[in-house]
């Protein structure tokens, strides 16, 4: 092993030298710099071949990059408030952050998963998990916006998430931390007695209607990652677990004792049956379901109060444990659905289980024991093979659809290519440094797009210009089209990228919404023309209905607001043109600006604290006279007799003709 380590290090050094000298042909997995550059070069004005969606890690968001260029296209705000566009600050979006713990402004995203049809990526949505306060979000890919968030009750650390079944029937979430279910005040030392894991299956195929179908109550292990079966393993879902020792302190040591932990194989069709047969129990639970109404674009929260819970001992046949060496991390199903590859992070082999053998072992009851009603299958009865000496710290495996598997090696900092069926190592390439997930576009589906592999690295050290103690994380693009892997590109990423998904641009790019139709905007405070703009008061609440259009706000002078009033600026961008956005911000407001997409209404709440004049302005450079797009609010002391007025009517008439308020009639075709 020491020899192997030295070999890898030497290889890394040679490649590093190769890349340092431009034009010098690099060896061992590199390309001449010029060749690599031409492979990732996307000429100005040209589009990338693929969209990739990377978890934003502890930024709580989802980042979107073009491949092969590695150019960042967008950060989609998901679980963290985003001051840049008002996500989580505007009145319309605040509800997306509601949970049973109240307003949660941040989370940690790990695993984006693209929606699938027949086991292939269909380009409709991305699901992504919140790890800290377990939730799953659905992001619409015609708008690149988060539309729906479902909280997961009876869970802590929603890590094994948001993987989906081959027809997006379910998205899943499993608990990394076992906790008392329901969560109550117990001594931590009662771990074995009181702590449980849960595996959650939520209906994911209907926008706005994500629902928990059932939760499976599991022994108190740490459930780590998951993937759905397909083909022969269709109807099964696989979750890795570690800490089968059920340690609750110093897990570093105490959870690394057992020779083998487990993959939990869940027969979710059987689970559906059990629910239908009434073998589950509706347990009280409190959790939030947040979704954006499509027409008003206003987020709503519904608090749900119960969840269907299945206990495997009441419903035999829903879960089996597959013994798997040393704290397995990833569990990845090959494109045919036959092989389950586990990344035992402390193991010296990569174990691969066979679906066929697993089904046979279940039929023949080749159980070595039972844990809390869950049969443990015999290791040798389910094992298809082991990849020997793959490297150190295997974590995740992806597939190229040509019978090859690629596994990330965290400790030896490399990606290893090996052959399914023969289990021989074919190639290895160093990555810089400490790779976590890897991603081949479609690499966890039935149809991988096997041209590129992206390695997502936790540590960058000397790879980029240094930026103080906190350095960027990074991704590396590797060409896997030939026999030898070739490093093409390094590019920095936001947060810490965990998993990622990618798909051909054609699946998405022609379906992009360009603007919201004003005629279909049913926001309660929509202002479709300047004629309808104005200001009104109800007690201490002032509502400003405002229009934004190149290059002014209407109204742009407001008087009669008083100290202590709650002022809602409901601003509608009445543009019906692509990429014409406006923004809105007021001096001294205790919230973020809001960006207004064309045809959209957004509301910012402001409680002025001192009398005076408060300017507001357009924050998104919209037009040649953007700097003129501004206005004033006069704030008078509480109880003042300054009348509430706003200057809208004078210019309004000409505006009306310009932008019809009525549902639009198509003049041309």
């Amino acid at each position: 092993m020491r020899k192997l380590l030295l070999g890898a290090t030497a290889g890394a050094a040679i490649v590093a030298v190769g890349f340092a000298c431009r034009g010098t042909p690099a060896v061992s997995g590199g390309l001449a710099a010029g060749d690599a550059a031409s492979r990732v070069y996307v000429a100005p004005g040209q589009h990338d071949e693929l969209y990739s969606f990377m978890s934003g890690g502890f930024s709580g968001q989802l980042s979107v990059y073009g491949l092969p260029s590695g150019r960042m296209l967008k950060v989609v705000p998901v679980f963290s408030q985003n001051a840049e566009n008002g996500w989580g600050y505007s009145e319309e979006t605040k509800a997306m952050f509601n949970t049973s713990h109240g307003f949660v402004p941040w989370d940690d995203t790990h695993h984006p998963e693209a929606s699938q049809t027949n086991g292939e990526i269909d380009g409709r949505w991305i699901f992504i998990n919140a790890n800290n306060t377990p939730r799953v979000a659905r992001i619409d890919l015609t708008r690149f916006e988060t539309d729906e968030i479902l909280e997961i009750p009876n869970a802590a650390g929603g890590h094994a998430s948001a993987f989906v079944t081959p027809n997006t029937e379910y998205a899943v979430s499993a608990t990394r931390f076992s906790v008392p279910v329901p969560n109550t005040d117990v001594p931590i030392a009662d771990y074995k007695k009181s702590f449980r894991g849960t595996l959650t299956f939520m209906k994911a195929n209907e926008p706005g209607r994500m629902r928990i179908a059932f939760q499976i109550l599991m022994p108190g292990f740490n459930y780590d990652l998951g993937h759905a079966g397909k083909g022969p393993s269709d109807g099964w879902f696989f979750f890795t677990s570690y800490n089968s020792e059920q340690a609750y302190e110093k897990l570093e040591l105490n959870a690394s004792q057992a020779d083998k932990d487990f993959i939990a194989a869940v027969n979710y069709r059987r689970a559906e049956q059990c629910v239908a047969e009434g073998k589950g129990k509706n347990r009280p639970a409190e959790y939030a379901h947040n979704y954006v109404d499509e027409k008003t674009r206003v987020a709503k929260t519904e608090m749900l109060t119960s969840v269907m819970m299945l206990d495997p001992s009441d419903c035999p046949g829903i879960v089996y444990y597959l013994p798997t060496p040393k704290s397995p991390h990833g569990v990845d199903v090959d494109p045919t659905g036959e092989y389950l590859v586990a990344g035992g992070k402390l193991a010296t082999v990569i174990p691969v289980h066979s679906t066929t053998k697993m089904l046979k072992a279940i039929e023949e009851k080749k159980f070595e024991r039972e844990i809390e009603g869950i049969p443990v299958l015999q290791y040798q009865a389910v094992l298809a093979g082991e990849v020997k000496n793959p490297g150190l710290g295997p974590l995740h495996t992806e597939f190229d659809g040509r019978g090859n598997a690629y596994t990330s090696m965290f400790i030896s900092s490399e990606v290893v290519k090996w052959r399914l069926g023969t289990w021989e190592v074919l190639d290895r390439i160093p990555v810089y440094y400490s790779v976590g997930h890897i991603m081949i576009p479609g690499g966890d589906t039935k149809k991988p797009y096997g041209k590129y592999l992206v390695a997502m690295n936790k540590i960058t050290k000397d790879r980029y210009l240094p930026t103080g103690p906190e350095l960027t994380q990074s991704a590396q693009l590797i060409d896997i089209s030939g026999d030898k892997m070739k490093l093409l590109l390094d590019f920095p990423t936001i947060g810490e990228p965990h998993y990622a998904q990618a798909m051909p641009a054609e699946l998405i790019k022609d379906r992009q919404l360009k603007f919201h139709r004003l005629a279909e905007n049913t926001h309660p405070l929509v202002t479709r023309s300047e004629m309808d703009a104005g200001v009104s008061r109800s007690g201490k609440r002032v509502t400003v209905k405002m229009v934004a259009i190149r290059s002014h706000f209407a109204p742009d002078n407001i008087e009669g607001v008083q100290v202590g009033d709650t002022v809602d600026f409901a601003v509608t961008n009445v543009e019906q043109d692509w990429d014409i956005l406006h923004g809105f911000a007021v001096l001294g407001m205790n919230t973020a600006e809001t960006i207004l997409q064309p045809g959209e209404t957004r509301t910012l709440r402001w409680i002025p604290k001192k009398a005076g004049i408060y300017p507001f302005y357009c924050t998104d450079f919209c037009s040649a006279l953007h700097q003129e797009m501004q206005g004033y609010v006069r704030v008078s002391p509480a109880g003042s007799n300054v009348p509430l007025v706003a200057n809208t009517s004078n210019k309004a008439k000409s505006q009306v003709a310009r932008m019809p308020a009525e549902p639009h009639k198509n003049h041309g075709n």
Partner: protein
Amino acid sequence: MGRRLPAMVAGSRIPPHQMHMSRLSRLLTAAASLLLLILYVTPLWRISLIAPQYPEGLGMRIWIHKLGGVKEYDLDNINQLNHYIGMRVIDPQAIPELRYMPWVLAALIGAGLVVAFLGRRRVLYAWVAAFVVAATAGLLDFWKWTYDYGHNLDWENAIIKVPGTVYQPPIIGTKQILNFTATSWPDVGGVAAGVAMALAFAAVVVARREGARPAGARERAALAEARRRATPARPATARGS
């Protein structure tokens, strides 16, 4: 057809083969008229506007009875941009031509079909002349509107004032107007109208050539027969013998 010839020829001083349109000429006239029907379903003209900020372009289509954007909101966005230069709002409701042009066209098509039916050359000439007048008037009227929109600006409220800039788009061709490249060109209907006019001219040419040199044995025979029958009746009781 041949049988009606004597009655129509009777009383005329012009040799009959010069008064009548040949079958081909009549077919061309009918085709020209019917082709004009396309104008009810396709736009006549198209103005495209390309700017650095509008690589996808904005566009306007002009029909005989309406006017609108190429994309759904193009006209609104053109108006929206025009407010910077003080151009009046382009409002289809304010253009009366769009209300009566369909009727003018209907009359033209109807008359063309009548010409083809009657088969008289002088009527054909009159119809073609009317067609030319209508087309020229239409283009002039189009130019007048573009001139009006391009020149009669609300200077007091114009935000951008560039002395010497004329905002009139071309009738045909391309012109740079500030950041926009305006291109004006006949659309499907306009091209169809042009083809119809070419067919009408062809009908005239064919009619005239037939007059100079009667072609085809059948027509010659028909003419001879017509003469034979017409001649004896001429000095006496005229028609219907």
